[in-house]
């Protein structure tokens, strides 16, 4: 989930270099020597196969800057502000799918043989445990079956997930984490964290006699590390809003700005000692003193829910709060009614504001000959959730409340992660190609792990991206303008990976121990760069899932830009993994076979819930093909 496949439309421009910029005409609204205000209005309308309208987002963004020059000891003093507000009409225009009328009654699979044979049972009509649930608290309405947009229940685990906004239906809404009401969904930026103030910061420099400069930016801002565009290897300081357009929007637009102090000591060309001189040398300290924020992974009921994790979480919280029916559970086949407080997600433990929860980063960056480099270190809180088992829960058979081994009852945590890494770029003159490398080694990340009694484990992780950009003339298509070819390979290696073959299948960490994602961009330009078609592909090698994103950008006038495109997925979607039906938490009632140790998985698997980590963000979105039209008017 650290993977970030960056925006399909602007990514291309980002890697085009000088020749690939797309520019529209000058249209300053207010501008003077030391102050400016400008902005844009944008409509993004997307339609999804089988769903209909999936986005009708209208955005107004205003950007302002005021320069003050020298103020006391400081020079280059300026204040910058960016305000953004949006209204997504999809929750009103397609409320059967994403609004107050979304969802409905559901059926859950029951593959038990006779005498229990009933291919599907309604939610609330499964096999009742001695301590079951009351459908008055969790009615069979306003729900979907977990994962139904991607796959059938296929003999695996499934349960109902409420999908309506939290003011319409508060089941499964996790306080302070995934609890958006209708207006929160419609107007994303107008929330308790004042996200409509997208950025607000002051810049100031302190110049030294040596010629070096201490350059500081203080305020709500984005801090960007790294050299690659598509993947978040080092660019991990700000959390990201995946609910906006899954992994496909521009990072610039979906990074969640935080209150940060960033200070650079800029030394410029520096001779460290005789024989070792840098063309540029810079040291940076980043202190993120804002209250912690996780990624916005999307709430179930929104069009974009990365990995469908928000649906899993909402369904699980509903199970904990209200109980519910789980398909194919008892004996691995019988739809089973669990009572509240037995399984599910109890709460999200978001780190509160205190000094020890702030985040600190150091970077040394420079240019040495033809080599650009950085060395990075960061201690931060994971912006991705980690599910910790081992919480007190009720035994569905005995009614006893205790901590049960390998019981699928969780709290959500955001562990501290320490990162060291670096990046390089190099221009290979002989092949006229730029090569970029970025790598990070983290400790403290946590992964689901059905071999552990708490159902998670910690692992060090190595990630890297190697990329190359090259402009190539294809005279038969365009004699006067080169095409950009840009390829990248992203690797992720979970160094403390655990997986074992058990009686009924594999158990352990569902994520691939070693995996790679490749991307390729081909982009061309016509009409003095006012018309630019492109094709972006991304392929997850282990998931065998691919995204194809063709698009055409047209600069219709000085200020009007129209982008039409599609996002099509091919390859495999859902994948199976141990779902802990056979983890035997309530021994002996949940034994999968005689003598099975308590809390030890037998490995029976299904598509839900852990197969998502094998499918990855591309595979989990296989049924989310879209056509997309974006119109932006700048002023």
């Amino acid at each position, binding site marked *: 989930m650290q993977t970030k496949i960056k925006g399909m439309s602007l990514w291309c421009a980002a890697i085009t270099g000088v020749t690939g910029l797309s520019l529209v005409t000058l249209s300053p609204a207010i501008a003077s020597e030391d102050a400016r205000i400008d902005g844009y209005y944008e409509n993004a309308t997307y339609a999804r196969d089988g769903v209909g309208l999936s986005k009708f987002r209208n955005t107004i963004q205003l950007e302002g800057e005021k320069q003050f020059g020298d103020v006391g000891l400081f020079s280059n003093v300026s204040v910058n502000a960016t305000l953004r507000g949006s209204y997504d009409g999809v929750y009103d225009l397609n409320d059967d799918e994403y609004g107050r009328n979304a969802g409905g009654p559901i059926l859950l699979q029951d593959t038990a043989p006779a005498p229990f044979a009933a291919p599907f049972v309604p939610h609330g009509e499964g096999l009742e445990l001695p301590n079951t649930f009351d459908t008055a608290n969790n009615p069979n309405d306003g729900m979907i079956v977990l994962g139904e947009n991607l796959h059938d229940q296929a003999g695996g685990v499934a349960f109902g997930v409420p999908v309506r906004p939290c003011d319409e239906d508060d089941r499964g809404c996790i306080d302070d984490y995934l609890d958006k009401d209708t207006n929160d969904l419609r107007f994303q930026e107008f929330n308790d964290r004042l996200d409509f103030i997208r950025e607000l910061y002051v810049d100031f420099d302190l110049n030294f006699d040596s010629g070096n400069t201490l350059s500081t930016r203080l305020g709500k801002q984005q801090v960007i590390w790294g050299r690659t565009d598509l993947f978040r290897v080092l660019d991990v300081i700000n959390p990201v809003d995946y609910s906006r357009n899954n992994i496909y929007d521009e990072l610039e637009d979906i990074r969640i700005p935080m209150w940060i102090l960033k200070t650079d000591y800029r030394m410029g060309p520096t001779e460290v000692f005789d024989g070792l001189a840098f063309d540029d040398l810079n040291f940076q300290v980043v202190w993120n003193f804002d209250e912690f924020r996780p990624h916005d992974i999307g709430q179930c009921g929104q069009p974009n829910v990365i990995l469908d994790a928000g649906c899993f979480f909402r369904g699980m919280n509903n199970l904990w709060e209200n109980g519910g029916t789980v398909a194919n559970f008892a004996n691995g086949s019988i739809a089973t009614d669990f009572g509240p407080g037995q399984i599910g997600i109890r709460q999200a433990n978001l780190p509160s504001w205190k000094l020890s929860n702030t985040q600190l980063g150091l970077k040394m960056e420079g240019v040495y000959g033809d080599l650009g480099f950085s060395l990075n270190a960061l201690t931060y809180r994971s912006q991705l959730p980690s599910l910790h088992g081992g919480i007190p829960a009720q035994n569905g058979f005995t009614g006893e409340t205790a901590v049960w081994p390998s019981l699928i009852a969780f709290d959500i945590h955001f562990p501290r992660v320490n990162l060291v890494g670096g990046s390089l770029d190099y221009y290979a003159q002989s092949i*006229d190609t730029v090569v970029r490398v970025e790598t990070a080694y983290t400790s403290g990340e946590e992964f689901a792990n059905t071999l552990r009694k708490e159902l998670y484990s910690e692992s060090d992780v190595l990630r890297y991206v190697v990329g190359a950009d090259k402009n190539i*003339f294809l005279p038969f298509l365009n004699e006067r303008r080169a095409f950009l070819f840009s390829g990248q390979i992203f690797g992720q290696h979970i160094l403390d990976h655990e997986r074992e073959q058990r009686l009924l299948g594999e158990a352990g960490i569902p994520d691939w121990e070693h995996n790679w994602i490749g991307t390729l961009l081909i982009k061309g330009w016509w009409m003095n760069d006012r018309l630019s078609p492109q094709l972006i592909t991304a392929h997850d090698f282990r998931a065998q899932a691919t995204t194809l994103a063709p698009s055409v950008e047209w600069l219709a006038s000085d200020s009007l830009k129209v982008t039409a495109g599609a996002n099509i997925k091919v390859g495999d979607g859902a994948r199976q993994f141990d779902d802990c039906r056979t983890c035997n938490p309530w021994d002996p009632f949940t034994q999968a076979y005689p003598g099975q140790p308590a809390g030890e998985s037998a490995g029976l698997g299904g598509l839900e819930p852990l197969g998502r980590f094998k499918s990855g963000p591309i595979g989990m979105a296989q049924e989310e093909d879209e056509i997309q039209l974006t119109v932006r008017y700048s002023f």
Partner: protein
Amino acid sequence: MKKHHSQTLMRTLIAGATASLMATATVADDAVIEESFFPYRTETPRFDGLSPGMVINQNNVAQFKDVIDPAFYSFIEQGWTTITVGETTSFDLHPNYVEATRASLGQVSLGDQVGEISGWQAGRPFPEEPNADDPRAGEKLAWNYKYGYNWGDSAAIYPFYWKYRDMDSGDVERTIKFNFHFLNYMGRVIQEPTPEITPNPSELFRAIYVQVLDPSDVRNTQLLIHRASDDLKRDNSWLYLGFQRRVRRLATGQVTDAFLGSDLMIEDFEGYNGRISDMNWAYKGTRYMLMPFYNHNDLTLDTETHQDDDGYQVVAFGGQGGCFPNITWQLRKVYEVEASPADESHPLSRRVHFMDAQTFTIPRTVAYDRKGSLWKTFTIGQAHPDHHLPANEGSGVSIDDSFSMIDVQASHCTTGQFKGQVDPQLSPTNMFNVQHLRATGS
């Protein structure tokens, strides 16, 4: 005693002969410098029928075919534009540059292969008149251009407007507003430190920093180019995209692509922006030609594109599609140099540069495609520094002040309107570091 006397006599004779030779050499040197830097001190160029103030148009252009390059001649012949003739004036370069040339006279030589040079520290490397019998005369002129005084030790085009125009309809398709900054690391003759900025670990010759001011969606896009003193080495370049907030290193070998969708290749900048070693150079002759040299303050200017507190206005454009600067032209001494790409896959078969002999700027270039057909013509208007912004007075810089790149085949052009400022405060050294891009980005 006699022996001593004869030795004294001999020494006297040798000393006298040496002094005489030195005096002769000094006189010769002075002549070279005078001819190179002050060609109009003793003689004003003339051409039958041509006089300051007259307008060359469709009706009388045939009379002046010998002093107009063939591409521009065809434009006038078609009625697309006219030439208003101005008086020939001397664009004296800064005395320090002239003296640097004098100091290194005869010490600069070419290496074995194109792109190699030795002995140059500052000034014009080959001020001697080109010799048609010298097979490398064109290459020497190219070096004179590369190490020319150009924008001086540092300067800024602040701001710089590019307009993309449909030559048939006259529609302005885009306007991009930039700031361009130039800094010489070597060969510095005016601004301290001279002759080189240190430390200079990569032995840079020059750096160019570009910032996009408008339109808003690409604001703060920045480009930094480092040019090594070793001509055989390609530039290092970095791009900061304002809407992405990341610095990217660029592949700079592809300098023949359209720059930002304009009609210019990166290689076209300032007349020629590639390596000496990328071309085969041929000197084709010396003659008087009409060239776009003028006094900016004497022109009727564009009142709409730019306004500021200085009251400065940029050059206006007119003619076919608005592709021609409304300027005056002078009859000047010109070296015609043909540059043929060494790389056979280059989209051009050749460029014909018309280099101004006094300033070694390239105010006119005509480019031909692979088939040998006329493709583009480039005009860079040169303004006298003493008739421009007050701050430029006495700078000795021939100010790039307007440009027009016309794609004849596509009937399209890109025009440029400058506010060139020779002010070191606008281009401090730390502006040309990679980190500056990140610090400036928002």
